[in-house]
């Protein structure tokens, strides 16, 4: 099928043959050039820039070696951001998986109206996160907020959800769960369609249904979906930004500081692009390693 190899035989090498041979390169050229400029070079650049001290304005770079990394690992704020990421992931992954799977099974249990349900339940993923963060800020508000009005009905509160160090991160995690479980649901729905009908029939014959069927049959078969969802949720939680930026600004006292938010603060608030590059490179390593783990884990089950 090769265009090049099907080119006219020797002696008839014409302009047309040459242009056919060049065509693939013309077709991939623009995309390739842009990927090199905006993905490959930035990967290298974030490492190179991390070895320098760079002011936001002007391009006078000053070589500082690994000083930015030394600072990052000594920085209590960075360590707190990493710790917060771990906590946030821990709070979102399991509920996100259970709710996502639960919603998918719920939708599957209907014979009609599946498409409508899926659309409605998927809306959280398509909504603008800045807009939703503002709405959640209001819902969790101390004065007049929906949750506190509810709590007042039973004589509790008010709770300063976003202003208190103990509740701020769990509140952001609740917003995360709201969004991730909708995404996870779609992944599980796709996973469920790959389970052969014969397995459902065999289970029915053996009288296996309900939670037993989920636990003994579906859960093991959905392992690739679960791995996918776990890693994606982790990668997303390392990169949580909108809700932190809008709802808490990393506070109170850094309790909701995340790695991406720290990068933004360092680079564009304190104007330290070199240091922000070092943090970006750490973020890059964390997300790439997580992505590779996902690929290995999924391909080892021979499904993808």
């Amino acid at each position, binding site marked *: 099928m090769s265009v090049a190899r099907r080119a006219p035989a020797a002696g008839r090498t014409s302009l047309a043959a040459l242009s056919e041979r060049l065509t693939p390169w013309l077709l991939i050229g623009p995309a390739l050039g842009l990927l090199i400029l905006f993905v490959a070079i930035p990967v290298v650049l974030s490492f190179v820039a991390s070895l320098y001290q760079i002011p936001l304005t002007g391009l006078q770079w000053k070589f500082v070696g690994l000083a930015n990394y030394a600072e990052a690992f000594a920085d209590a704020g960075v360590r707190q951001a990493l710790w917060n990421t771990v906590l946030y992931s821990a709070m979102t992954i399991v509920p996100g998986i259970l709710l996502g799977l639960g919603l998918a099974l*719920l939708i599957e249990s209907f014979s009609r109206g599946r498409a409508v349900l899926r659309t409605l339940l998927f809306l959280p993923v398509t909504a*603008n996160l*800045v807009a939703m963060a503002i709405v959640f800020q209001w819902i969790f508000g101390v004065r007049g907020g929906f949750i506190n009005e509810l709590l007042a009905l039973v004589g509790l509160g008010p709770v300063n959800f976003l202003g208190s160090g103990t509740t701020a991160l769990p509140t952001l995690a609740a917003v995360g769960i709201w969004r991730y479980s909708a995404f996870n649901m779609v992944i599980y729905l796709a996973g469920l369609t790959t389970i052969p009908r014969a397995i459902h029939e065999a289970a029915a014959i053996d009288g296996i249904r309900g939670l037993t069927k989920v636990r003994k049959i579906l859960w093991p078969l959905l392992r690739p979906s679960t791995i996918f969802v776990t890693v994606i949720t982790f990668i997303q939680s390392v990169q949580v930004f909108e809700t932190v930026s809008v709802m808490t600004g990393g506070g109170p006292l850094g309790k909701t500081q995340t790695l991406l938010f720290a990068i933004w603060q360092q680079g564009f608030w304190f104007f330290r692009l070199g240091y922000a590059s070092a943090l*970006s490179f750490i973020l890059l390593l964390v997300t790439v390693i997580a992505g590779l783990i996902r690929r290995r884990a999924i391909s080892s089950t021979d499904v993808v």
Partner: protein
Amino acid sequence: MNDRRVRALTLSRWAVTAFCVVLALFPFIWMIRTSLVPADEVYVVGLRLLPEKMTLQNYQRAWEEARLGQAMLNGFIVTFGILILQLLTVVPAAFAFARLQFRGSTAIFLAVVASLLVSSQVTAVPNYITLSALGLVNTRLGLIVPFATSAFGIFLIRQYIVATPIELLEAARLDGLSTLRTLLHIYLPVARPAISAFAVFSFVVHWNDYLWPLLVARSQEIYTPALALAKFNVAEVGRDFGALTAGAAIVTLPAIIAFLIAQQRFVEGLTGGEIPG
């Protein structure tokens, strides 16, 4: 199972479903509801679903004070600018990787797939450095250019084309079509479902993007909707959630509409190739 048990099960399943739908949609419901409450009543209407007096003045305030008209226009310019450039670069590349053989094609395609591991958040700082060197900070072009192609789009559309029968290509060859004509007249129509899935996906993602505009857009004239809304949230010291939720509703709407129009394809696009099925 007897009749009564079946009915109880059906009923509880409906109850659970209704509860889940309300929970998923609650922020939207509360957003619309609050946006209709007159400014002086926002903090006193409590839990009532609909206020006695309803108003649209919050929408007017948000539109004017957050300068949402300009921001929405910018949003459309930027997202469609990105989309057009992506389609121009992604579709030909996807076709070439799927159906043409050239030296190093497999290796290059694997490199493209590998680049999916690198998110735009991770490259934001170095890309900012590149853009400031190119003098594109605080320009609309600077909001568009870094997203002018998409490895995800190449992957998605390539997978779709690979799954089409090879006879298509052979027929085109027999008819003596050039490679370019084969792309334009055969594969462009054939790959339409994948292309439109990607288009909606791209629109929603870039309409909702916040981090990159936050870094690049400095003057209000080029704010995108999410950025204008976030700045309005910071500036709105009175915490008037009537106007804030009205602004949130305006900004949310276009992506939701795009999703609803093509929801089937969007979901397939999002999960396509990443997951079996």
